[in-house]
């Protein structure tokens, strides 16, 4: 085997060393900052903007193209531009996480809102429901499974964004472990760092799924009409 492809055992051993000497811990304190801030902003702002674009044609016209562009733009190539605007600190990294995470959250949310069941909305109107009732009692609950699916996709994209930012802007946290280990040809440590971020993402997505199941208690499965 090539030197650049360490065995699984070597990788696990390197992982163990990084974990035990505290390197991993210190790195994650640094990496989680832009990740958590970025994902939180993306979730709240993204769902909010998704609701607005889903409910109003004007907002859709105004904002949807922005997110389609964000989703398709070659982010890595645009990072120098972000650095010029926001500097090399936390702000740029948060921006990268947001650009990765927000479009999928916004587009999923607005799609879900737009596809809310027409007949139930009409029912609410027939019983004199206000616009507010329709949004909070019909559209949001109906859209929530797809909104959550969008959140999951957004969060995984956010993880990619966080590492990308650390590799492309300034090497800090886990990105630093990856860059540094590669530069000294300590490939087991490099793969250990990559593995750790995958592990964390998987755990996080699982927690999110648990929250979702808890919130809806399996009620969303099966629909009122038999189409």
């Amino acid at each position, binding site marked *: 085997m090539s030197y650049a492809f360490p065995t699984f055992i070597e990788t696990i051993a390197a992982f163990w060393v990084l974990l035990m000497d505290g390197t991993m811990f210190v790195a994650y304190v640094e990496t989680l900052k832009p990740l958590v801030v970025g994902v939180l902003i993306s979730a709240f702002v993204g769902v909010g903007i998704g609701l607005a674009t889903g409910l109003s044609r004007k907002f859709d016209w105004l904002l949807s193209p922005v997110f389609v562009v964000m989703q398709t733009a070659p982010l890595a190539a645009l990072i120098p531009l972000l650095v010029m605007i926001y500097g090399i600190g936390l702000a740029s990294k948060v921006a990268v996480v947001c650009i990765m995470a927000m479009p999928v959250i916004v587009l999923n949310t607005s799609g879900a809102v737009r596809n809310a069941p027409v007949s139930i909305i009409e029912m609410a109107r027939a019983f004199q429901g206000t616009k507010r009732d329709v949004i909070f009692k019909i559209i949001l609950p109906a859209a929530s499974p797809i909104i959550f699916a969008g959140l999951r996709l957004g969060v995984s994209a956010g993880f990619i964004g966080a590492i990308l930012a650390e590799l492309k802007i300034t090497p800090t946290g886990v990105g630093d472990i990856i860059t540094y280990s590669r530069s000294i040809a300590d490939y087991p440590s490099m793969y250990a760092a990559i593995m750790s971020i995958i592990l964390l993402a998987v755990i996080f997505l699982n927690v999110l799924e648990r929250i979702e199941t808890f919130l809806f208690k399996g009620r969303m*499965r099966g629909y009122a009409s038999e189409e």
Partner: protein
Amino acid sequence: MSNNTNDNNHAVTVRNVYKSYGDVKALRDLSLDFPRGQLTSILGPSGCGKTTLLKIIAGLLSADSGEITVNGHPVTGPGPDRAFVFQDFALLPWASVLRNVAFGLELHGVSKSEREAIAEKYIGDVGLKGFENSHPHELSGGMRQRVGLARALSVDAQVMLMDEPFAAVDEQTRRKFQEDLLNLVKHENKTFIFVTHSIEEAVYVSDQIAILLPRPSRVSEIIKPEGFRHKDAESIRRDPEYLDIVDRIWSSLRTYVE
């Protein structure tokens, strides 16, 4: 109001209503009165604007011109004097039967304990006792429409608007529903407006049948089956007048059915 006496006999009046969807004229100069406390069917071939007319009365659609009054008040939108039963039930899939039945009252701003007490009563009335905490996907089609019916009854509107309510349930359940509907009309002091495409169903349940001919729709005939209305549910289907009216309606509608 000048025609006050007339309004007292009629819970709902429709006067010279026009409605088009783009170039398609759905309703043309349609006028129809709905006698108070009775069931009026709107019957016609598909695409004749039955549902459009019902939704205009409900205030869900607005007419291009013409006037609709409910108890003498012009209709400008949905109101508490009307309750709607939907063809596809329109239940909240994430909510229990109890919340679904109470949902009309919830939207009216009735307190939780009060609306649940009322909902419990109507859940019992439509024969769903014990299913309060079930969800729509756990119920059969017929049971779902009972939920829809209980929801409409629980808001205690004087006018019940029913849009092909039995079209999506199986034949046997439909027959049972028709018999239950006769009892409902007899015992609840409400005006029923019932859209259907089934001739037998219309003749079986109606005090008055308005036959709509298609595009642009107008009322071509009003039939009032009176001879067998007092009979019990089982013997109506064998009554000669019932059979005659069914035949008569079919012969006037058949030319419009492709």
